[in-house]
């Protein structure tokens, strides 16, 4: 198995460079271009509107302003919302890595009765849509007075995050040679030392990849946060959604400005993630599991 981080060792296709493309290629690239054009239109509509003064009909707004960004920042207390988002995301990342990595280690190294059942239990939270288990989960969290505050939001977001870490980390640990651990044990290392000095450094790239992916997923997770958040524990996605449903009283440009802020922060996270993770490698790892 290849490491998650490595460059793809695929055998390269030695096709000579052709200037003229075949019709099939034209159709494919044409539809890609069409998709991207629509996408560009969708995104720039929002961006243009967020900088526009007034835009009723016409190709472009009447004038330009950055007023809406300041307004939305103040009105929705985006400073506070961003702090909450950051707190939730970091807590989810830390806890899910702490819980998920040891479990992935045990799953990668041992075969035991009931392992398949356990794997299914870990897979289900990813396979079942968040709303399905989110509604009963929110009910339970409200029963224990955890929902409506930060701890409830963190707990709810952990439900898909921990299985995700396990799923990403198990194949990653499988490709670390167990002989390295055996050799360390031969040299007299205790279990704790093996974990901190041998496995820790080897696992670091994988843990980093898993952590960043969990971070992206948590910041983007709408349903679970929406079901469990209270007034002062909203993350950015949920605040954005509420600003849309309250758009009757506020200028739409404020919502658009907030959406741009959200997308920019997600973009920063995703670009950071893509620097550490090659997405096409990651999924192949998961595929080889089954």
């Amino acid at each position, binding site marked *: 198995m290849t490491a998650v981080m490595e460059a793809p060792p695929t055998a390269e296709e030695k096709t000579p460079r052709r200037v003229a493309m075949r019709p099939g290629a034209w159709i494919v690239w044409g539809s890609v271009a069409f998709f991207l054009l629509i996408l560009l239109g969708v995104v720039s509509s929002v961006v243009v509107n967020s900088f526009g003064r007034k835009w009723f009909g016409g190709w472009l707004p009447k004038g330009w302003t950055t007023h809406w960004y300041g307004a939305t920042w103040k009105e929705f207390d985006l400073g506070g919302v961003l702090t909450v988002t950051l707190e939730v995301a970091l807590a989810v990342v830390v806890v899910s890595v702490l819980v998920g990595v040891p479990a992935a280690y045990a*799953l990668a190294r041992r075969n035991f009765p009931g392992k398949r059942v356990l794997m299914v239990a870990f897979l289900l939270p990813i396979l*079942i849509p968040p*709303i399905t288990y989110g509604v009963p989960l929110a009910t339970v969290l409200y029963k224990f007075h955890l929902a409506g505050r930060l701890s409830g939001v963190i707990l709810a977001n952990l439900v898909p995050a921990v299985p995700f870490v396990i799923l990403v980390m198990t194949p990653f640990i499988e490709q670390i040679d167990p002989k390295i651990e055996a050799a360390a044990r031969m040299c007299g290392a205790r279990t704790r030392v093996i974990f901190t000095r041998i496995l820790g450094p080897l696992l670091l790239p994988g843990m980093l990849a898993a952590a960043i992916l969990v971070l992206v997923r948590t910041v983007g997770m709408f349903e679970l946060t929406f079901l469990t958040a209270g007034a002062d524990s909203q993350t950015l996605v949920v605040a954005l959604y509420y600003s849309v449903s309250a758009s009757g009283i506020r200028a739409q440009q404020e919502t658009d400005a907030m959406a741009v802020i959200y997308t920019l922060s997600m973009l920063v996270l995703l670009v950071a993630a893509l620097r550490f993770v090659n997405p096409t490698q990651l999924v192949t790892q998961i*595929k080889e599991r089954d």
Partner: protein
Amino acid sequence: MAAAPAVARPRISLRHRLAERGIDRTLLLLLPAVVFVVALFIYPFVYGLQLSFQPQAGSDAANKYGTGPFATYRLFFADPYLRNTIWTTLKIGLPAALFNVLASVPIAYRMRGRFRGKRAVTTILVVPITLGTVLTAEGLLAFMGPTGWLNRILLDVGIVDHPVRLTHNYWGVVFSLTITGFPFAFLLTLSYLTGIDPTLERAASTLGAGWWQRFRHITLPLLAPGLAITFCLSFVLAFSVFPSAIMVGEPARQTRVISIAAFHAAFEQYDYSMASAIAMIMGAVELVVIGLVLAWRARLYKGATGGKG
């Protein structure tokens, strides 16, 4: 001194026997994760399941069908406004997931080799993941709305006489699901495709197979199990459509999906039994679809694809 080993031996041998079956102290590492899944996933699920069999007093279900265990389910299947949400959700989710998977196959097929700028193209195709449902919805409303750029272009070119209605209906939701779901399906398909050993195709090529034969008889059979998984995951995403169905859809009628019904019951009527029942039905319908796809997948060839390993 003689007694001590006699006492210790069965304990050690039990430990050995367990270790031989793979049970030793390493499994303790699983404990936090197991506790976690049981407490936060299985317990709420079971709790919701039993709640769905206990209709709340004074709720619609209890008023109509009594407090018997199946009152909530009977209400769901008797009331067309609730029952039809299943059909509505499937009508939106299945085509959207199918389109995302089918569209990503030719594009990924083109991109499986190495060429300059591949990483850039992949990144651009993946960027829509960052948009989130709200920006996509806002963008669709602005871009495809009656006064948006798209309708302006169509009117100026003369393709249509009056603005086409593409938002606040079925199509708006499908567009939104395509924009958010396609990058995901594409990424998975591309990773499955690059996992197939390219020498297999070259071997077929030396035997005189054209590109269609190579694709139909070599690549597609190897890719099909991966496509089944891609379809399942895309369908999960499309099936749980919630924010976009409200924002770019017509949440009262045409795009009243099942998650809206669940949310409405839980947080507007505060009828948690009904909401749990709807959530359970939603999960069941989704698992049936996934089960059918996976059953089909089980009949496919699933050997080594010879790629990276």
